[in-house]
């Protein structure tokens, strides 16, 4: 048989699956974003001359959510990369019980987000949560962790970082283990300090793994939904609402599918734009050490 035909045939099931779970919903949403389809139209789609997109441009809530989603993704992914790298470096060191430590470190990642978010909700509970119990033990007044926009945002980021840092750490650990030990030893013989080894050798060689973790996490964080939904419901006052949550509200609560589809497509475009930027930045060959 023609080899290219064989290739096509072999790939066909995967392509069909991709088309069903990815391309089709996306195309459907793109089409739906040009339609009025809400509870007021009896859910029937009716072309509305781009009114959804006009509404989007003037929708302060969309822009606020976009900004807060970007801020959330940027800060939490940044923190996760930093902490994940530190964690990977610690886990990479040989030592007793390392296997257990690795399994333990992965636990937060293995937990379902909703379970975890409920757990954090309990931890942050005012006034009965463990954190407030600690404050009380030190004679301090209970603190409303989830009652002001800034602290809710901060503690949402902390919960997200806690959950996904192990994922980043695991990826980077795999990267670290792919670096032959002799490279580091060779640098040790040159008299390099641990910091120099990290900067001159480990980080440049980890770059593909860091890019991978960054792209994965960025895509996930920009679509953050369950954590926010359970932890703060986007509150207080919508300050932590993510684009995904807004799209979900429009679809499942408001039954405004046309506008929800518009939000989905807008979020998707934003994601494509950002990951493309990230990819272009990271695809570049590793830096030559400057002369």
């Amino acid at each position, binding site marked *: 048989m023609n080899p290219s035909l064989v290739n096509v045939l072999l790939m066909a099931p995967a392509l069909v699956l991709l088309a069903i779970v990815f391309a089709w919903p996306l195309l459907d949403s793109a089409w739906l974003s040009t339609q009025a389809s809400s509870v007021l139209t009896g859910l029937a789609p009716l072309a509305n001359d781009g009114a959804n997109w006009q509404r989007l441009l003037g929708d302060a809530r969309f822009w606020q959510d976009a900004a807060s989603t970007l801020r959330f993704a940027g800060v939490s992914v940044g923190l996760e990369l930093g902490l994940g790298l530190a964690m990977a470096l610690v886990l990479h060191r040989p030592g007793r019980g390392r296997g257990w430590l690795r399994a333990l470190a992965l636990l937060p990642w293995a937990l379902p987000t909703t379970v975890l978010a409920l757990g954090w909700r309990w931890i942050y509970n005012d006034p009965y949560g463990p954190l407030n119990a600690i404050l009380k033990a030190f004679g301090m007044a209970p603190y409303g962790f989830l009652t002001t926009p800034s602290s809710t945002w901060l503690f949402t980021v902390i919960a997200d970082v806690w959950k996904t840092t192990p994922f980043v750490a695991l990826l980077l650990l795999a990267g670290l283990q792919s670096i032959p030990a002799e490279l580091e*030893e060779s640098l040790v*013989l040159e008299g390099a300090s641990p910091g120099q080894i990290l900067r001159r050798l480990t980080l440049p060689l980890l770059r593909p793994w860091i890019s991978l973790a960054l792209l994965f996490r960025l895509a996930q964080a920009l679509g953050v939904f369950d954590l926010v939904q359970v932890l703060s419901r986007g509150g207080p006052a919508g300050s932590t609402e993510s684009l995904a949550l807004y799209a979900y509200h429009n679809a499942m609560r408001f039954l405004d599918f046309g506008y929800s589809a518009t939000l989905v497509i807008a979020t998707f475009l934003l994601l494509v734009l950002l990951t493309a930027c990230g990819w272009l930045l990271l695809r570049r060959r590793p830096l030559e050490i400057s002369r």
Partner: protein
Amino acid sequence: MIRSMPEPFSPIPGLRIEGLSRRLGERSLLADLNLEVGPGECLALLGPSGCGKTTTLRLLAGLDPASCGRILLDGDDITRQDAGKRRVAMVFQSYALYPHLSVADNLALGLRIRGMAAKERDSRIASVLELLQLGELSLRRPAQLSGGQRQRVALARALLRQPRLVLLDEPMSNLDAQLREELRPELRRLLCGREQPVVYVTHDQPEAMGMADRIAVLRDGQLQQGGSARELYERPANRFVAAFLGRPAINLWPAAAGRQLGLRPEHLRPVPAGGLPARVQRREWWGNQQLFWLESAQGELRMLLPAEQELPESLQLGWQSEHEHWFDSHSGDRLPAP
């Protein structure tokens, strides 16, 4: 090796290893190693895998800590010194080139770390690139180089450090046999006869014999014998050294009365009469010489002969008594001829 006694108060030049040991838990990786390597001398550590040769190298480099013993380099005790301060260069078996850096940057990185001025750095790199004929490869990355070129870059990087000691861990094991043979003289030219002692680890006996001034044979973390290739070949200290050195391997008679005779294949000769009767089983014709596999009362024997010599199917074998090696059949130690 016998060397002149040092002057009082002047440092003993070269490398001196005293009672060096390394244990890992219950396991002894290296036991009580004593060796000396003079300036410009090349010592090969030879032995099968797991014999402790790479362990020794890592102890010398400072990558692993010694359990006891001392390492003296030009009279300084460096046993507890940080690896980075020893000024020891090492060529790893995998070459350990930094895959993200060009050849030039691979060479420059170490100098940068030591904070060498750019001008001096560049001139040094230029000269070593020239010495190793790597000039036109300087902008390539390791992945774009052949095995031999990588080895030369690794070597260049080691020499560039102007080390007090050069260590090489199986530097040719990743190359094909022909290239290995070609590179041997070049490697010798570059490494030996300089200021520093060179310690060269290999499991390849011809390579050790071709490269090194002296050879130390290791087995199970124990030094078996040290000396020139010729000393080791002609007067092996024990059965292991005798068997490990020399291809085809030495013929060993079955033990008798606690003693065991060893005879190298090239020392057996057909004799008209009065010898050991044997029958030819198989012949390997190598071009420059030929190997005969013989069946005799002493078991299967190997005999090396000039290529053109013909043999009858049945023959008698003889040898000169000075070529006899006698070993204690139990301990394997060399015994005087009976």
